[in-house]
């Protein structure tokens, strides 16, 4: 992965990760693909899966606060105006970074802790940082729910094909 190339077209309007970033992989292979449980019942091995539930809740308090802050932040650009630090918690810390996307770095760290808890991650994280500033938004949304989720291979939570959204 150290050889990974991030192809960016002029202006940065199109990203073509090569190879795919870890988050692309996660979204694809945990949530899509042929579900073996639908075909095989007898000889499934109930191996424990550590997976992240990538589903998010759009209509959540966290999301609203995040977008309120992003909206307020436009003030800072335009008028050098009011502080939004009172919103508290991790938002204060990252609010100082001056870019809305920076808000979500904490969530990314968390994501890495879970998915990338092994060997190769120094390189990975750099790559991930570069590619995934924006993706963090959804990885982070249910911070409190992103505990490793030991589940048997046939856990119904992994099988739901309608994937994300709608859970609260």
């Amino acid at each position, binding site marked *: 992965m150290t050889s990974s190339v991030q192809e960016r*077209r002029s*202006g*940065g*309007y*199109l*990203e*073509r*990760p090569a*190879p*795919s970033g*870890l988050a692309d*992989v*996660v979204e*694809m*292979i*945990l*949530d*899509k*693909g*042929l*579900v*073996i449980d*639908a*075909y*095989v*019942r*007898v*000889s*499934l*091995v109930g*191996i*424990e*899966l*550590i*997976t992240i539930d990538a589903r998010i809740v*759009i*209509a959540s308090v966290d*999301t609203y*606060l995040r977008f*309120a802050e*992003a*909206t*307020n932040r*436009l*003030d800072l650009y335009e008028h050098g105006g009011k502080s939004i630090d009172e*919103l508290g918690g991790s938002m204060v810390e990252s609010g100082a970074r001056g870019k809305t996307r920076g808000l979500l770095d904490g969530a990314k760290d968390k994501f890495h802790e879970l*998915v*990338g*808890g*092994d*060997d190769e*991650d120094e*390189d*990975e994280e750099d790559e991930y940082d570069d590619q995934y500033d*924006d993706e963090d*938004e*959804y990885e982070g949304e249910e911070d409190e729910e992103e505990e490793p989720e030991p589940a048997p*291979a046939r856990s119904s939570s992994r099988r739901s*094909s309608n994937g994300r*959204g709608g859970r609260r």
Partner: protein
Amino acid sequence: MTTAVGLGCYVFAIVPAGTALPATDTEGVDGTEGLAAAVTLVEAGELAAVVGRVPTDRPLGRASDLRAHDRVVAALVSAGVAVLPMRFGAVLSDESAVVDELLLPHRAEFVEALATLRGRVQYTVRVVYEQDAVLRQLLAARPDIRQLRETASQDATSQLRLGELVVHALEELRPADASAILSELIGTVDVHVRPPSAPDEVLNAAFLVDVSHAPAFERRVEQAAAQRGGRVRFRLVGPSAAYDFVGDR
């Protein structure tokens, strides 16, 4: 339930029998202990499963596991093989279970699915708003949001109200932008629009594309992105296996 040595049979994908297994790029993958260490074919009739060995005494799902799955499947796609990709985590007790419980009982279905996917790949396009640009647009268009932003105090209730208005306004903005983009990404075999995963996401969609058409599709994506530069950002992943087009059952 498991073999004596505690190994399960990990299924990466289903392919046509006789497929020559390509070398998998295992850089960054877990070496000899990993899923991708000893990939083989288990054949039954005109079908084959691409399988690996996995110890059953440790949880699956580490980054290197996920990457191994992705790499093995991606190598098949790169080699031009028709592939039914499995969702991550498909472990059977042994190879005879793969034949007797997976391949043979569902033979007709898998053969037909492979025929549908032959010569086709998936591209995934994710489009998100440039946050500052879209928020400025909303503020310009919505006096109520503008006013609330000016007058709202910093307490959580006011901020929640502001955020809720903004998120709903984004949701109202999304359909027109999404369908405009979709209408430009034509010439594909099939499209699967995924549910939005963030308020500022415009579109997250998988496209099934004939390989012969892939360059044209990539150009269309590029053009659609270029036209909207500064307002939205595109992310194009692929060509990959058709993960979004095998799960309906």
